[in-house]
């Protein structure tokens, strides 16, 4: 956040959002659907970036927050008959509460220990989902009936099976999270978080309760991850333990690192990049994971700070 960068902070976000809004009219159905998914998962990545990229909290357990939202929304709609908007918010709340609870304990640790503690908690949540399989159906998961997945405004009923509605709901959620990310980074809180990442004890000597700020960062992060999970459950009608497994804690880390740690746009870029990497590679060859692997390695070598991060650096280099 240099002074010069404060010129037109909202320009890039607006361009990006307008492009996304326009994209739905030109994209073929398949990519239309893909972008919907990418935006939903980008929210997960944004959430992760808030903790990792802003406050320097490297968690290996974010799958538990995504799962909290997924199950919070899915089960409240499935068993308690929550309406779709209510279930969605409830999912976010679950992510938030879990993040608070986990944070109170896990944030006593730092660095690698924090990685492990979050990893273990997440594992425990995963096993717990299996343990209560009577309700969760464990790994197999369950489907949300179409009657549940509707928006009612008095007489008019909108079904979430409609791709256009789905796209724009995803876009709305993404836009909100994206702008929140940008705003937070420029807010006083954001300034503290960034400083926190660099030198925590110095921030304390300025009179800030750093534990509180780390907890705050983790909570917002958990809430966004939860909302992303809730959106997935309601938009794509499936709730399953796979999403609580370790690889879904690694994905957001991977997406953020690919896109650019601590950048506002990085999460979307990283998520999209990874999605299409797999999609295209798997069309060329059945051994597509080799292609994916090689590309990941090359990306790291070419874009050491992630795509957006490295480009930004190059750009600054050009200007000064």
């Amino acid at each position: 956040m240099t002074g010069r960068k404060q010129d037109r902070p909202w320009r890039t976000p607006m361009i990006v959002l307008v492009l996304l809004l326009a994209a739905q009219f030109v994209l073929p159905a398949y990519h239309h659907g893909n972008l919907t998914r990418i935006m939903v998962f980008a929210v997960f990545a944004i959430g992760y970036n808030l903790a990792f990229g802003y406050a320097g909290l490297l968690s290996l357990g974010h799958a538990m927050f995504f799962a909290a939202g997924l199950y919070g929304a899915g089960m409240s709609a499935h068993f308690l008959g929550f309406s779709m908007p209510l279930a969605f918010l409830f999912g976010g709340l679950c992510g938030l509460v879990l993040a608070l609870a986990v944070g109170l304990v896990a944030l006593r640790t730092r660095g690698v220990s924090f990685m492990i503690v979050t990893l273990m908690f997440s594992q425990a949540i995963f096993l717990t989902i299996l343990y209560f399989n009577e309700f969760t159906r464990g790994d197999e998961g369950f489907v949300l009936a179409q009657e549940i997945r509707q928006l009612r405004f008095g007489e008019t009923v909108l079904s979430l099976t409609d791709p256009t509605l789905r796209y724009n709901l995803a876009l709305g959620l993404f836009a909100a999270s994206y702008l929140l990310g940008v705003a937070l980074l420029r807010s006083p809180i954001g300034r503290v978080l960034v400083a926190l990442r660099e030198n925590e004890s110095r921030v304390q000597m300025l009179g800030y309760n750093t534990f509180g700020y780390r907890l705050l960062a983790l909570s917002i992060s958990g809430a966004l991850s939860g909302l992303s999970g809730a959106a997935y459950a309601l938009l794509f009608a499936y709730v399953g333990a796979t999403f609580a497994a370790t690889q879904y804690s690694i994905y957001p880390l991977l997406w953020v690192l690919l896109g650019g740690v601590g950048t506002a746009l990085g999460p979307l870029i990283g998520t999209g990049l990874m999605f299409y990497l797999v999609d295209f590679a798997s069309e060329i060859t059945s051994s597509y994971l080799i292609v994916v692997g090689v590309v990941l390695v090359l990306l790291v070598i070419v874009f050491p700070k992630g795509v957006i991060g490295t480009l930004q650096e190059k750009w600054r280099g050009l200007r000064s």
Partner: protein
Amino acid sequence: MTGKSDDHRKVRKVGDSAFGVSRRAAIKGAGALAGVAAAASLTGFTARAHSGSDAPIRIGFQVHRTGIGAAYGRWYERTSRAAVDYINETGGIGGHPIELVIEDDGTDPKRGAEVVEKFATQHKVDFVFGTLFSHVVIGSAPRAGELKMPYFVVSEGHHVASGKLNRYVFQPGITDVRQQVISMAPWITSNLGKKIAMIFPDFAFGHDHRDFFSAAAGSLGGEITTLLPIPPTESSFTKYFAKIPSSTEVIYHVMVGPAVLTFVKEMGEFFGNNRPELFGFIDSLEAVDIASPGLDYLEGSYFWEAMPRYADGLPTAAAAFYRDKVGVDANGASMSDSKDVATFSHMFGCWETLYVIKAAVEQSGYRSGKDKVALIETLENMKWFNEGIAHPQGGKQFVGQIHQSFGRQFISKVENKRLKVVHTTTIEDGLYEPEADYTKQAL
């Protein structure tokens, strides 16, 4: 045919060869693949619809090429290719050739749903089929329903029959867990013993076994001495066997995943010679050589089989013909590599499902996507699939309300490191009251 779809075919060929029998050749080609990437990314934005009267029936094959299901996926793919080739040799479906469009779902429910979407909106296929693992089926089913895409799974899960999926999902080519389990119960309780300990994976597949078998055995005077659900993250099992009370007469085990061999071996080491009777589901040993080191003590134990792995277990012409077409030898291994053991009790489902699709298309006069409703209604009204080349595993009764087939099951004993069929159930043994009625759902 347009140039685009032309080079797209080339593109797919590369992918296919990489999974053919000569896998080493494939990796050499891997270098060339990079170049093809460009081509693919170009075609990436062009739908693959064909048109015209000679148009092939395009069937999307959702296969587990990677991930935990890969061992099954490879044989599902071989079986499906064999079936498609033979159907096309013999006049295709009502004169139209089948074109198989293959996508890997990585045995992941998220990717599974995306793949179904891709089949519908990008490849513009007529049907999707072939999914095995339950979580992928359940993750993909909603999208199939929303896209009104007939979705034929080969999963043996109870999900379709339970009625919790939707009207577009069918399982006509393979029997479901519930009927398998209840048709086993009488033979077990009357031949092996009534005091039974159950060991099963602690997830849905295992719980279906737990619930349905406990109920069935109970009604036959059996007693479940202990239930041991094993967490999927576990890689060593000996410590759990200690929990089995010594009064136990039969251990009923059904494990899946790469650790099953360990499980079976450790069970042997633990109980030694004075072991209770063992009854297992062959899922534990699919794609595994019975003669593998450490399995010796399985000698004299019993397994459920959906289709006998060893040719002499089901000496019908149809079964032999099927075995030969798929390229499986008399011992249930690949003809080209005796170490490459088939998933014989599951993969026949692909072959039979493709024939069910053929039948449904021909009887309903299906021509294009707009005839899907007719196709589904026709299929729901089918009652019986006759044993023969189309159904080498055996005749099947199809229950339209729950979109599920019912068939016979086999019980085999391990003798001289081979599986020898000792009992064959009837379709009636596995029948149960339909739990739902899909035909009442809107299309």
